[in-house]
């Protein structure tokens, strides 16, 4: 393992790896190492030393940080100015059984969005700029540190969700937003998936700008009868009360306010941490959620993003069935937690259509022609 603490050292390391044609795994907090195809025993580049906030400009609504800055640190610093990151990063460490520290770059690289994606988009919607070292050993910038920019190709989008396969990040600039003063959650109990998801979509398609919309069946939420639809709203004190009243009206005055905020554990996948088997995230068009849940016919599942994602725990023997159901609804089934053999066999996603897959490989080669970075992970 080699440890680097500044961009120059990253450049030196990549140049040496290029010279030796020696691929490596990029590791920071290590919480997401078990996502995607296993790296086997490749050498590791430890980038955890690239940590810390470089410049926080609350009035410009941007923050620039080193990539291995922890989510906890950045969240705390932004909160001091009543702001939050532009996206809702998910911390999968408990789900994946890691004691490591979840980082900014880890969340963005794995496109790990929590329940707030519904309202705030994912990492790709808020990463404005980055610096990195490409597979040629060149330090380069993508995007720019302003909130509106169309100059050249939008490379920050590509970096998000690339699982570290394009470059080694050395700096990231994100949009930030004001943090709502208050939040509250409503619970519509004892409803079937059909009724629960219909209620969630009603709120999703209203002007209430909900911050979380999830359905949990009985097995995932005790004391909620057949299952519960959960609705999170945000705002200043008085507006929040009025929005809650409007949501009550839309739901036929059948929901009740609950004290706890269940969305952090939903978005981080913690509800599945103690369940055996594979854990999947199936992304679909929200209105298909009840039918997808019915076809999956599993005990342990939930729907977040108003039905746009179904989380589930399943036996390894269900894998091909889950992929087939996702495909039949034009969705994507992401294998988030599994043993290394299953991950090697199944991949993170189902194979893409040949022309699209070839295009993805060509884009990867445009950054990393020798396939040095996290080879095969995506």
């Amino acid at each position: 393992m080699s440890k680097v603490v500044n961009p120059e050292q990253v450049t030196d390391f990549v140049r040496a790896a290029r010279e030796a044609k020696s691929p490596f795994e990029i590791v920071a907090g290590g919480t997401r190492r078990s996502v995607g195809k296993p790296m086997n025993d490749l050498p590791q580049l430890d980038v955890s030393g690239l940590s810390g906030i470089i410049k926080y400009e609350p009035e410009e609504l941007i923050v620039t940080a080193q990539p291995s800055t922890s989510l906890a640190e950045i969240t705390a610093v932004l909160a001091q100015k009543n702001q939050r990151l532009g996206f809702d990063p998910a911390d999968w460490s408990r789900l994946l059984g890691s004691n490591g520290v979840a980082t900014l770059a880890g969340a963005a690289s794995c496109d790990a969005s929590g329940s707030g994606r519904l309202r705030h988009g994912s990492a790709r919607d808020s990463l404005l700029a980055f610096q990195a070292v490409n597979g040629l050993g060149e330090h380069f910038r993508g995007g720019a540190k302003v909130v509106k920019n169309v100059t050249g190709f939008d490379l920050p989008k590509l970096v998000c969700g690339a699982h570290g396969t394009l470059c080694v990040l050395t700096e990231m600039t994100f949009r930030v937003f004001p943090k709502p003063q208050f939040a509250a959650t409503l619970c519509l109990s004892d409803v079937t998936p059909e009724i629960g998801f219909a209620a969630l979509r009603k709120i999703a398609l209203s002007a209430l700008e909900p911050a979380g919309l999830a359905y949990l069946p009985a097995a995932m939420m005790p004391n909620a009868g057949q299952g519960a639809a959960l609705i999170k709203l945000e705002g200043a004190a008085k507006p929040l009360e009025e929005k809650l009243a409007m949501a009550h009206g839309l739901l036929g005055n059948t929901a009740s306010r609950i004290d706890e905020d269940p969305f952090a554990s939903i978005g981080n996948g913690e509800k599945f941490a103690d369940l055996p088997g594979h854990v999947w995230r199936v992304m679909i068009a929200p209105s298909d959620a009840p039918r997808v849940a019915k076809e999956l016919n599993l005990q342990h599942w939930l729907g977040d993003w108003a039905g746009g994602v179904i989380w589930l725990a399943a036996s390894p023997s269900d894998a091909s069935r889950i992929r087939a159901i996702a495909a039949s609804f034009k969705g994507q089934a992401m294998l988030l937690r599994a043993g290394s053999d299953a991950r090697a066999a199944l991949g993170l996603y189902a194979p893409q259509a040949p022309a699209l897959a070839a295009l993805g490989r060509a884009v990867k080669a445009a950054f990393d022609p020798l396939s040095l970075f996290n080879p095969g992970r995506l």
Partner: protein
Amino acid sequence: MLLPPTDSKIVARRAEIVSALQAIVPDGVVADKSGLATFDSDALSAYHQTPLVCVLPSNREQVSEILKYAQAEGVPIVPRGAGTSLSGGALPRQDGILIGMGRMKRILDIDCENGCVVVEPGVTNLNITKAVEANGFYYAPDPSSQVACTIGGNVAENSGGLHCLKYGLTTNNLLGVTLVLPGGEIVTIGGKSGAQGGLDLLGLVTGSEGLLGIVVEVVVKILRKAPVTRTLMASFDTVSEAGACVAAIIADGVVPAAMEFMDGRAAEAIESYNQPGYPKGAEAILIIDADGVEADVSHAISRVITIVAECGGKTVEATDEKQRTRIWSGRKAAFAAMGKLAPDMICMDGTIPRHALPYVLDEIAKLSEHYGLGFCNVFHAGDGNLHPLIIFDIMKPGEFERAEEFGADILRLCVKVGGVLSGEHGVGVEKRDLMVDMFTTAELEQQGRVKCAFDTKGLFNPGKVFPTLSACVEQGHIHVHGAQLPHPHLPRY
């Protein structure tokens, strides 16, 4: 600015190319002189070239066949939507096929349940909203050309508008596209689920200015129309006060739906043009929209009124929808109003960090004196996107060139203060030669390699965005001596 040299060998084969295209699209080839004149420029009208031929496909199969033909024959391609690009993105080539996408304008699927609409690329931006407004929805990005510009062009340019701070650009409002690659392959990226199952190529294609392929289908997000929108107008004695006010509003946690700045010159020109009721003598005016549910809007408006007063400004709130429209009609007529002051005008488009506004405006005033040309500034203050309008008379020798130099200096200034060359209009031909002021050689080469991943022969929209022709065969590490540009043997234009 120089346009790319024309390949006379291709021009000599014109008749053969025209008949090949007629075989693919029998009723959609424009090859006569007067017909082609319609297509000789986009909204950057100072530049024009007659295309070799223009073809108007009706479906994706025809697009694919055209591209396969062009690829096999080595003929450049220029995609075009409605031709409203302000950066010359759709400027034709004398040796290239112009593909007009205007005939593919069907709305394929209105899916309010999933908050999305599936459209062909030739549907205009505004027609998406019109198709869903009866259901209470709208499509958020609203470039000022929205009556005419097409969604395909919006995807190519990653178009913005007045409401980007809160609602994002085109890229934040898409779920998927179907793209025909330069080799003719048809790929679908994303869809109603928004998931791609691999690299975010949707994000890459959006804003790629017609360099990577041709979009033949788009899945856009639609949003519920806010039940309440209120509009405030704030006037200030100094630009600095207005700038400080914008910062204070943001710092307070208010995210306005729109926050527009105009300087005293712009306000004066607009007031004499269509009398929207802008206060006389103000050095800076802000127009601020808050939208959402009643409670959120009331909260935001009361905060803004307080903050404006603290910053030394005066506010007037539109009392009804008529007055709201009137206030906005002035801002939207800024171009036309300036057009009355001089026969010609160019609209620049850079983004700056908001805190740099007073400095940048001072510097622009100095540049104006230096070049002897008039100007005014409108500014999407919420997101830092500055639009200086430069006025000149093209009939006066040298004025157009001076206006272009003035504009280029403004954009260099934007880069110098930490901003960018383009916030929403794109690079096109207009800002192509300034890319070296913003990006290093390694950075331009990195982008060039991404271009090559899609377009190995370099046939798509050549001469746009990048200042040197990309030579895909030269991929790999290119050693550069000193400040010498890469590919010294390749023409720079």
